[in-house]
Every structure is written in C-alpha cells, then in structure tokens.
C-alpha cells in the first residue's frame, strides 16, 4: 500500500517534470551530507551527480569532513539557504541541531528533502531513508542465522560496536539489533564498545573483546569503519570460521572480508538511490509535487552467497545500477 503511494507520487513528479523537460539548466540543488569522508556519502554524491546529469541541472556537493562536526553542517545549511538554490537535499547529523535550520530553509521557500537521517521537524518535503532500526533488526536475524549454521545451536555471547556516540542513525541500528536479539533467548549481549569512528580504534576494541571473551560467537559493527576494524581483528586472530561478524555498509575492505569469509553478512543501505532520488524529489517538489513524509529506501543483506548476484551488483557497485526514480520498483 505504501509502495503504491510512492510509485504514484513519483510518477506524478515524473509527469510534471517530463512536461517541462530541458528547462532545468538554471536549477541548482545543494546536496549536504554528514561527512565527506566516507565511501557511503561518496556514493550518495555519485547518485546525486547521476540525477543531475539525467535531469540536466547542476548540483553542489557539500558537507563537513567529520560526522562529529554538527556545528559546521548547520553553518553549511544556513549558507545554502541564504543563496536560495532550487532545492536542498540534506542528511541531518543531529536531529535536534538541524531542526531549526531546516525549518528556516523551508520557510524561505526552498524545498528540503531530508535523506538518511531525520531532522526533528516536519517542515520538509519528505524524509528519504533507510529504516535504520529495520537494518539493525536484519543484522540480528543474520547473526542468529550464522550462529545457528556454525554451532548448530542458538546460544552464545554476542558483542556490538557503535562507531560514534550521539548519532541518530547509529542509535537506531543498535536499538533494532538489541531489540531483535531479544527474540533469541539463547543469545546474550555481553559487551558494547563505542569508538570514535576510526578503523584503528575499532581494531583495538575488537581485539580486546575477543581476548576478554574467548567464547564470543558474534560481533555486530554498526558502520563501515567499525566493520573494517572488526574484520581486521577477526582475520588477525584467525577467528573467521568461529565468530559471526555482521557489519553495516559496504567499503572495499568490507567486501573483501565478505569474500574471504571474515564478514558473514553486510547490511547494505541504498545510498546511491538516496542521492539520486533526493535530487529528483527536490526538483519535483520545487515544481509543486507533494510527497509522503517518509519514504523507505530499503536495506539488503549481502553474504558470500549472493555477493556476485546481479541484484547486489548495483548496491556494491553503483555503475551497474539500474536507475529509476521509482523507489521500491526495483
């Protein structure tokens, strides 16, 4: 039902825009991400660039270098608002801090599409995101499945690694993971470490976890840098066949770890589509199209078995992606 609504909305946008095709060379859309430093956000930019190319408009790719720098993102958004672009696509690093500036941009008549992480306001066009909690739940399901396959049972100790304190999307992933894991009474969470979004810290933390709990059967790493670090630790200790490692996102390193059996499952979002559809939606909204307040871009699970399948090709390598603004249609 939701899906139908989405397709309808998008199709409406498509017709409106289609009627005026070729008129967008003066349109400019600012795409503001949380951190310009991760592959994930780079993929969002790639999607946005592709949309810009398809629609013949121009975009600016903006963002602070670090997810820690909330203040800088606020400033970037305020500056963008002042310059009155056709539309703004933004991922909110902090829901509360970005609420007021997003309000202000909307009041200034600029359509704002929020992607990936929500801002604490409803004054925007739409929120286009992975449901991070669902992603966390899927991670727990994958972990239970992996443990079952390894040990034949469903008991054991599990730990999880949070990349950074205070980020809404990470909190949601962790929450989904922890809640879902409760449905497996045999699996207990014995440890939780919070890093500083840095692979070498994640490596040290994981090494120590594996030392402190020799009987650990599972680790969940909630973003790509944590996944890189945890993967390195598991591989160093030669525990690839013993510890079930489930991680978020898809860095080159993580994909290598999936192929070599170190990482058992990757929870993959669709950042390319967020960028691509974000630009589309912003432009459509500037032409009066109304969207539902929330659009789920979905998560997929990548394992060694399906990593080379054509469906995953697009998620792992955006160049192979079949593009469509019709979310949920692919």
């Amino acid at each position, binding site marked *: 039902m939701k899906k139908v609504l989405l397709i309808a909305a998008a199709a409406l946008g498509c017709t409106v825009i289609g009627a005026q095709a070729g008129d967008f060379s003066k349109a400019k859309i600012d795409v503001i991400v949380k951190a*310009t430093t991760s592959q994930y956000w780079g993929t969002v930019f790639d999607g946005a660039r592709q949309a810009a190319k398809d629609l013949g408009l121009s975009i600016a790719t903006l963002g602070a270098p670090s997810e820690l720098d909330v203040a800088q993102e606020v400033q970037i958004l305020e500056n963008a608002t002042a310059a009155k672009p056709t539309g703004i696509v933004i991922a909110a690093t902090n829901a509360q801090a970005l609420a007021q500036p997003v309000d202000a941009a909307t009041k200034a008549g600029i359509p704002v599409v929020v992607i990936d992480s929500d801002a604490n306001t409803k004054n925007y066009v739409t929120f286009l995101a992975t449901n991070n909690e669902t992603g966390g739940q899927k991670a727990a399901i994958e972990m239970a499945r992996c443990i079952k396959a390894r040990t034949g049972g469903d008991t054991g100790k599990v730990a999880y690694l949070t990349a950074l304190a205070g980020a809404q999307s990470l909190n949601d992933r962790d929450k989904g993971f922890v809640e879902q894991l409760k449905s497996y009474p045999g699996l207990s969470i014995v440890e939780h470490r919070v890093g500083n979004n840095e692979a070498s810290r994640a490596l*040290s933390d994981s090494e120590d976890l594996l030392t402190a709990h020799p009987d650990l059967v599972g680790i969940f790493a909630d973003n790509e840098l944590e996944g*890189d670090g945890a993967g390195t630790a598991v591989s160093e200790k030669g525990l690839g066949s013993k510890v079930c490692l489930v991680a978020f996102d898809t860095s080159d390193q993580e994909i290598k770890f999936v192929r070599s059996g170190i990482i058992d499952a990757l929870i993959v979002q669709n950042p390319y589509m967020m960028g691509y559809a974000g630009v589309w939606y912003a432009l459509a909204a500037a032409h009066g199209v109304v969207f539902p307040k929330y659009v789920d871009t979905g998560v997929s699970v990548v394992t060694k078995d399906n990593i080379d399948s054509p469906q995953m090709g697009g998620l792992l390598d955006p160049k192979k992606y079949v593009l469509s603004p019709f979310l949920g249609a692919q």
Partner: protein
Amino acid sequence: MGEGTLSKAQEPAVRVSMFEGLRHRLPLETYVLALTVLVWILLAVFSQYFWTTGNITDILRQVSIDAILAFGSLFPIVLAGIDLSVGSVAGLAGVIFSMLIADAGQGILVALVVTVVAGLIIGMVNGWASERLGIPPFIVTLAGLQGYRGLALLLSGGLTIAGMPPGLQKFALSSVLHVPSLFLLMLAFGLAAHFLLAYTRTGRYMYAIGSNIESARRVGIRVTLVVIISYALASLYATISGLLLVARLSMGAPTAATGSELAAIAAAVVGGASLFGGRGTILGCFIGALLFTTIGNGANLLGVNSFWQMVIEGLLIAFVVYFDNLQKRRQAGLG
C-alpha cells in the same frame, strides 16, 4: 635558604647536594611507571585474560603506533613549542602512500620515499613558519591540523583506499622471537630519538632553547636550524606512524589518526614532559603511551563503559600534572 647554604661550611653543602641528587634520580617517569605496573597487576588480578600471550602481544602492537607519534611530538614540546598537526600528517601520509600504491601503481619503496619526503617538507615548513615568521607554533600547527586533514580528504575524495599488497599487513602482524615487529620498530625509533635528545648537541640545544631561547641565542646556538630540525622530526615520526597504520589495517583512511595529536601530547605530558619546554624524555613518552594503551585495553577487558574510560583518562592527565607540580613546589621549598 640560599643564604644559609652559603654561610655553611663545605661539608654540609655536599650532603645537601647528595640528597638533592637522590631526589633527582627519581623523576616523574618513575612514578608513572610505578602506576603503570600497578594497573598491570590490578588487571592481571581482575581479568584472567590480561596476562596471556595473545593479549600482551595485542598491547605491544597497539602501543607501538601511538608511541611513535608521541616520540615525534616530544621534540617540539621540548622546545616549548607544540605540534598539533601530527595526527593530520599521519592521516595525509597514509593517504599519499596508499594512493601511490593503489592508484599510481608504484612500488612500496617509491611510495615510502615520496611519503617520507613529503612529511619532512611539512615539518620543515612548520618549524620555519613558527621560528622565522614568528607565528606561534600553536597557530601554525593548528592550521596544519585542519589543512593537512583537508588535503588528505581532498586527495582521497574522502574515501578509504584499499588494495594494499598483502605483504604489508603480513609485516605488521609478524613477530621476531615472539615480539611483534611493530614493537621492535617502535623501539628502534625510540632509541634513535633518545640518542638524539640525550647524547647529541642538537638534542641538548633543543632543551636549551626550550629552557631559555634568549640565552640559547646569546651563546651562539643556531636556533632557527634546531627548531626546523625538531618540527621536521615531529612530522617524520607522524609520517612513519601513518604508514604503519596503513600496514596494520591494509588500507589508507583519510580519517586515520584523527584526534591522536592530543593523545600523543597527553602521553608526553604524563611521561614528564613540560609544555613550558626544556623537560621531557623518550622513556617518559613511552611509559605515558603504554599507560594509556593499558587503560584502553583494561577498560575493554573489564567491560568498563567507553565513556567512563574517557573520564578516567582525563582524570589521569590532571592527576599526573598536579602531582608533578606538587613535587616541584616541594623541591623548590627544600632547595
């Protein structure tokens, strides 16, 4: 007090000097080392996994890269300067090195030489700007902290760089007679730095400049040269630690070593270095780095909340600096 000493006969004065000598032979490093050993004993008691070969190997590997960064940051601290850019330089070095290998198809040796030269140039510019242009080193290297990180992000497009030759990580994980190669490498760089500071004229002039730059000038020391050497060494050591991070994780990350300049400075200070210059040893830096690594490892083993771990580290810095000041005041009162 001075009057009394002068009016006394020779013999008691000598006794005073022996007493002073004894106190001097117990510098801050001794207490910090004792504290570290105490933490080790406590951890061995409270965690059955602490005193295992695997865990000790992990600690030795974990401390190595941090300690090298701390060694480098000691040189400017001895000068009463500071280098806030070491973390960013480490990140930039890792990016340059891994891009030369992965994107430009260069061999490890070429990549190594180019990266080290780039690191040295950065350090020389830092030293030159703070000495010749008279910009406070805090400002010069604050600019570097921001600028070099930005450069690392620009060059890499903000992405991690995979595709390192497997031999690199194999080296980072290798051991010689059960001692990790990384740790041996750290010892070698530590010994070189210790030798320079303790036994050469250049090292002594660093302490002299940090104690009293005016008097150093008046005895004809080439201050500018020594300052440039010192910042160049800070950058060189940062570059090395950046390269080792690449080897360890088998990838270059533009965000690598973010914030580690402060950890490096904290290790030096906890190890007895003074931010007012003239004081600090390589041994102290090593002990400081080891203490922080031990605390991190212990917190993980005992499952101490990550945020409490930060609070504990902060309290430790405050305590050590306070203790050091207390010692000095007490000695001044006696002296």
